[in-house]
């Protein structure tokens, strides 16, 4: 579904990504973890072309992200993305947030889009918040609206960029539960997160990144019991001991 091959990315003379290669197959849940500044967010933003990269290729469903011939908006509309800071549109209600791209990208009628949005908002537990503005919602609710916004496009895969990092601890679970449900329904997902509990519950594979490189790409069970790299072992000790 998503194939990343030898991707390099640098800002000036600072290497952010070096020779990153990985694959996410249909229906797979891949968790990307690693210390901050290791390039996780950059990598995930390369997948839908929000961040351009210099070398290597990324294909989504056989379509190259970096090829100038690719209709990038069309490709992006098939991949949902959820951001650390939610990025809901503050001048719109929850419902309008979820309906916007359905109307302007998928060309659904407003009635059709709104009906779909209501269904999805209900599914993430926010059926009663359709007319609320983002500023009237808690962080956890905002993040669930932003998941709904991505799901409304009927995506083939979902990208999550530290979806719970900006949340108060008591709101993290309501977001993780929604994501977990999605994973169980078979959604293809790539999740950058520090939530190792989530990884243990739903991940198929774990990618561990350090200083721009993918140093570990192993099935979940092996990652938590017998990680290959020393760096990952250290990271796990630090993350899991508290």
């Amino acid at each position: 579904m998503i194939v990343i091959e030898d991707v390099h990315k640098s800002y000036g003379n600072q290497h952010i990504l070096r020779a990153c290669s990985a694959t996410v197959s249909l229906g797979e849940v891949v968790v990307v973890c690693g210390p901050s500044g290791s390039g996780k967010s950059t990598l995930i933003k390369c997948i839908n072309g929000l961040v351009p990269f210099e070398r290597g290729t990324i294909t989504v469903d056989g379509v190259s992200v970096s090829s100038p011939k690719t209709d990038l908006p069309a490709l992006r509309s098939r991949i949902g993305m959820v951001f650390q800071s939610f990025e809901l549109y503050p001048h719109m209600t929850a419902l309008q947030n979820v309906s916007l791209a359905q109307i302007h990208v998928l060309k659904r009628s407003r009635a059709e889009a709104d009906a779909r949005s209501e269904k999805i908002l209900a599914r993430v537990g926010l059926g009663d918040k359709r007319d609320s503005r983002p500023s009237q919602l808690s962080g956890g609710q905002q993040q669930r609206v932003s998941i709904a916004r991505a799901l409304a496009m009927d995506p083939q895969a979902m990208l999550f960029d530290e979806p719970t990092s900006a949340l108060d601890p008591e709101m993290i679970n309501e977001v993780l539960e929604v994501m977990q449900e999605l994973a169980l329904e078979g959604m293809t997902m790539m999740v950058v997160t520090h939530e190792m509990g989530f990884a243990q519950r739903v991940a198929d594979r774990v990618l561990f990144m350090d200083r721009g490189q993918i140093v570990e790409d192993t099935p979940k069970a092996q990652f938590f019991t017998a990680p290959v790299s020393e760096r990952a072992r250290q990271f796990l000790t630090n993350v899991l001991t508290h």
Partner: protein
Amino acid sequence: MSDFDWGIIARSSAFLAEGMALSALLVLVATVGGLILGFGLALMRLSSHWLLSVPASTYVTVMRTLPLVLVLFWFYFLVPLVIGRPVGSLASALLAFVLFEAAFYCEIVRAGISNVRNGQSDAGLATGLRRAQVLRLIILPQALRAMMPLILNQIVIVFQDTSLVYVVSLHDFLTAASVVASRDGRATEMYALVALVYLAICLGTTKAAEFYRKGLPT
């Protein structure tokens, strides 16, 4: 107060109204034209391509360093030279105002757009919206809210600046009042009136800006 002749205001009201109409026309044209042109300039300045951004920022810098009086003069004398026939003071003044204000509106629009978080455009793009759609549906509505008080403030400044058109012998409100004042020797009455009218209009607009800001959802 018996020395004052407030009736002069009523007697010269038609002439004063003409002056006010010209002021209003200048404000309207300068604001609408300046905003449209300024919007284009702002998009050029924000472009990552230097062929677009450098000319726009040069234009803005030059215009903002020039006094408006000079620009008014320039266009009054230059435009006929360029197109080969006289255009009249009103047309040249309108053109000068639009081109001058565009530089200021450009900066207001640019600040408004830059104020919207980068993540907002990422979020829009990630759902498959095209750049123009992101700008129109997501960035501009938010930018406009931030810009509104600044635009109203700029309108107040433009209104005050309309008095400068006397240099190309046009009669705006202030010029009309001063004509009456010197003709009939009624300076006190006329300038008191002018002060009150300017105060009312500028204070009203400023209050509207404040009111607008307070009414915004956070």
